[in-house]
Every structure is written in C-alpha cells, then in structure tokens.
C-alpha cells in the first residue's frame, strides 16, 4: 500500500515538472496564471497538510508487522490493544521525530536561502553540519563517559560554529557572499579536524561514528520532547515573519529604506536556523540535505512569497522525511536503510534536475 502511495506521489510530482517544461505556450500561460492565484497556492498547502496526515497514518500501519488503519486507531487510545506496543512506543515517536526533523530542516533551509539570497544555501552553509560533527567527535573522543550529552553538545556546537562564521564574515555588516565563503572555509577546517580525529582515535570512536549517518532508527518519546521546542519556535517564526522575509528579499538597500533593520534581522534569522538545524542533527544525525531540497520543491510549486513558502515547506518537509524513512524501513527484506540514504537517492537526482533547469540563478 505504501509503495503504491509513494509511487503515485512521485508520478504526480514528475507530471508537474513535465508539464512545467513541455506545456505549449498557450497552456503555459493559462497554467501560469492559475498557478499564481491564491486559491491554487492555498489548495497546494492544504493538500500537503492532508498528505502529512495520510503519511503519518500509513507509516504507522506498515512495517515488519503490518496493521490495518482501524487497528492503528485502536492502538492510539486503547492501552491494552495488540498493536499498542509497536505503534505507540516504536512507530509514533519515530514518525513524529522524523516529521519534526523534516520541519526544522526545511524551515532552516527556507530561511537561509532567503537570508543568503542564494539557492545553494543550506544549514551546512552556516556551519551546522561541520560544527555538529566536530563537537560530536570531540565529545566521543575526549569525554566518552558523557556520550549522553551528545545531543546538547551538538546543538551548542553547531550554534557556536554559526556565530564564529558570522563573526568572521562581519565587517560593518555581513554580506551574504562573505558569509557563504567564510562558511565554506570554516567547514573545510573543521572537516580537516574531523579527519585528524578519525585517523588518530579510530579505536575510541569504534562504531560510535554512526551519529554521522542520519537515521531515525530507535527514536523514542524523549527525542521527540527534545526537538519539539525548536519546532515550535520555527513554526512561530514562519507565522510572524513572512512579511519581513519578503522585504529582505528586495536587497539590503531597499529593505533598509523600507525601515527594516537588515543586519539585526539577518543575525536573528541565522541564529534561528542554526538552532533549528542543530536540533535536527542532534535527533537524527546528518540529514541536512532536506534543508536544501525541500525549500526548492516548495518554491517551484507555490513561488517565492514567504507567506506561502513557509507553510508549504513545513508540510513538505514533514511528509518527505516521514515517507522516506518508512521506505527505508520497509524496502529491505531485513533491517533498515537509513533515512539519509533514501533521501539522498531521491534528493540528489532532483538536485541535478535543478542544476539542469535554465532559470536557476
């Protein structure tokens, strides 16, 4: 059932892209007009929200032990139900964690692509990936007895790295290009540190390096409780700030003259996205690729107005991670394929498609 569901949605997405490119001029024009309407954008957002609900239900049902949807419902409110143990204790926390991670990462990516005015900006641009893995390795090697504080260390590490990059790029304000370049340089440096640690402390690390591979396997309610505050902040941002984001997109000069304090706002946004992405990495490891592709897909469908882009990204992020994780859970006869692998297999071809597209500036 799930596989069919997944295939159908891919076909639908593929069809949208096909018609975007191949539609005749006239069709293109009418379609363009329709695609600009509020009604269309709201429909898409509602449809995506429904997809999230449907995906959650289906993903609760499928797996090594499959249940019917009524059985799943029963497990939700009846503590004695047969499916309770698996559905309530194993699948729901995992699905919700995946969903929250998807929301946090896509919001972070969405914000950053706007702040940097760059299509390639993602949480790794502001050092979240490098900062998180560096601090993660450091904790495992230097303080192995504190491995349980890894999530907190990861969030702090990525946030600190972001601030260092911001500081390095700062000179009477931060230009997006400077920030991206400093981010690349700092990430490269941390990458080298990581390699050194991996080379010299291979024994201590043992198989602990698994935190590098993004996975949702074995996530429990406490993980969900850890990420939920960040998600709430992220969603609050997306409800309160679209107008400001839209103004920032007009460029610093224009935004300044419209009365937006661009520098302060940018720092705020960078900090928020760093925390969002850091929390996701703490829960699910490095699957930040979501932060790159989800905003792009959302933008292709609902356009760049943040009023629509934020909600679309939230739902798309949730659905994509949950569906990919479930695909990874059921695709192998035995064992799990980690969510980051499934995401990359789907995300990378899409990204290549974006590169081939003419109007990617």
């Amino acid at each position, binding site marked *: 059932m799930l596989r069919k569901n997944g295939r159908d949605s891919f076909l639908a997405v593929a069809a949208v892209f096909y018609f975007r490119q191949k539609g005749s001029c006239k069709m293109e024009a009418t379609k*363009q*007009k329709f695609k*600009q309407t509020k009604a269309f954008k709201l429909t898409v957002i509602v449809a995506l929200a429904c997809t999230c609900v449907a995906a959650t239900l289906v993903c609760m049902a499928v797996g090594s032990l499959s249940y019917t949807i009524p059985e799943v419902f029963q497990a939700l409110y009846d503590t004695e139900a047969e499916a309770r143990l698996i559905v309530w204790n194993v699948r729901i926390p995992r699905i919700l964690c995946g969903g929250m991670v998807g929301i946090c990462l896509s919001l972070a990516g969405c914000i950053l692509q706007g702040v940097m*005015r760059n299509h390639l900006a993602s949480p790794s641009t502001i050092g979240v990936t490098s900062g998180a893995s560096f601090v993660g390795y450091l904790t495992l090697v230097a303080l192995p007895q504190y491995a349980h504080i890894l999530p907190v260390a990861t969030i702090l590490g990525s946030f600190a790295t972001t601030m260092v990059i911001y500081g390095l790029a700062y000179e*009477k304000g931060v230009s997006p290009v400077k920030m991206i370049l400093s981010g690349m340089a700092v990430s490269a440096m941390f990458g080298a540190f990581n390699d050194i640690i991996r080379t010299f402390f291979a024994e201590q690390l043992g198989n602990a390096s698994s935190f590098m591979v993004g996975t949702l396997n074995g996530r429990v309610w406490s993980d969900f409780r850890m990420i939920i505050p960040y998600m709430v902040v992220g969603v609050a941002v997306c*409800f*309160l700030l679209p*107008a400001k984001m*839209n*103004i920032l*997109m*007009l*460029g*610093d*000069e*224009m935004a*300044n*003259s*419209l*009365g*937006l*304090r661009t520098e302060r706002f940018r720092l705020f946004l960078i900090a928020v996205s760093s925390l969002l992405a850091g929390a996701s990495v703490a829960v699910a490891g490095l699957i930040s690729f979501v932060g790159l592709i989800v905003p792009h897909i959302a933008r292709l469908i609902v*356009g*760049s*107005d943040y009023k629509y882009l934020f909600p679309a990204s939230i739902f798309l992020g949730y659905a994509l991670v949950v569906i990919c994780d479930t695909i990874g859970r059921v695709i192998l006869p035995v064992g799990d394929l980690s969510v980051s692998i499934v995401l990359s297999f789907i995300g990378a071809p899409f990204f290549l498609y974006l590169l081939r597209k003419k*109007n990617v500036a």
Partner: protein
Amino acid sequence: MYFGFDNISIAYGKRTILEDVSMEFEKGKITTVIGPNGCGKSSLLKTVPRTVTPVKGSVLFEGKDLRSYAPKELAKKIAYLPQLHTSPADIDIRTLVSYGRYPYKRFGSGLTAEDRDIIDETLELTGLSHMGNRLLNNLSGGEKQRAWIAMTICQKPEILLLDEPITYLDIGYQIEVLELVRELCERLHITIVMVLHDMNFTARYSHRIYVLKDGHVFDYGHPDTIISHNTMKDVFHIESQIIRDGKNGCPFMIPEKL
C-alpha cells in the same frame, strides 16, 4: 533646513570619496545631482537608507539628524530606489507594490483595507492597474522600473530619492519614467532627488541641479545656468554647443569632442 546633507564626508578605507559636502533640497522640487563617474553621487544618496555611513557629517530632515528617526518612521517620509534592484522573479506587480506598505504594517498583521486602497490608487497613478497580476519576470525594463517606482510611492513619502532611474532603459522608457517622476512631483508634491547621467534629460526635467566634482560641490543652480559650455568643459572635459530647446523651455547640449 527641510532636507539635505550637512558637511558629509565619505571614505572607503583610506580613499576619501566626498569631503564636506553640503546640499539643500527645496521642498516640492526636482533636484538632480550630476557629475563624472566615481564622483560619489550614488554613495551620497546611499547615506539616506544608511547603506553607506559617512565618516563625518549628517543627513538632515526637518532640521533633525536622520539617525534620530526610527527606521520605520523614516520610511514613511523618505523613499529610496537603488540603481540595481533584486527581487524574486516570480512575484507579481501588485505584490511588489504592496511591499511599499511595510513601514505602516503592524507586527504580524496583514494588509488593511486602507493599504489596499492606496495600492490600487498607486497602480492607477503609475498606469499599472491593468497588469497588476503580471510577474516581474515577464516585464520589460520600463515596466519593471515603473513597478518599482510604484512601490516607493506606496510608502507615501514626502521625499523620493532615485539613483540613476533610467540607466538601463531605452529612450522611450527613459522619457516615460521621467514623465512619471515629473507627474509625481507636480501631482503628489513629492520632493525628488535623483542622480542622472544624461545632461539633456537633466536640463529638461530638473528644477535645480547640483554638480559634484572631485569630492566637492562644484556648482548649484537652475538648469539654464548649470548646463553651460563651461560646466561641461570643467567637469566632464568635453567641448560642447549649447542651444535653446524652445519647446521644452530648457537648454540643450550637443557634445563635440574631448
């Protein structure tokens, strides 16, 4: 002083671009700043949205330093249109124009009925009403520029600063934009300050002209006195003939040679 620059000096690193430049702009008039490339015209305008911070001096509005105004309050008084603008390609004209209402927006709220009326009025005034839902991407340069000007008008400013508003446009659109600017000045009594490179358009559409050269104000006055053989020679190092454009009531400059 209503609006102007008070002893402004601007430097990039050790290079001083402008030194002790003072200008005063008359209320309700179009004033154009001209001068050779790199003389600091654009930098001077950029001190108003605070993109460029002067090392010395200040911008004055109604006798007070611009820095004493809250950013949003200032945005309701002074609008600025940079030479190069960036925006997402897939928003429509109406959406762009509505961004001009940002300074009036309360945190977290949407457009009010009053905002919508003002947007409609502005679209009407700038001749864009019939194409409000066209995407910026599909517009010609002239239409785009009109949309951007409409956005600044939506701020309901008293003063509008335009940095080279006609630079990338063909001659038809150049006239169209400048006619629009004149109309804004006459109908809405907006004080206009702009930077132009075309001497003849400057002569035709300005009430007053400031000439900048080597980081200083070289001259100031009415187009009839400024657009002269001597100014062209001293500032741009060209020989020229000045004839009278009787129909438009302004001087017309024919450049000759270096």
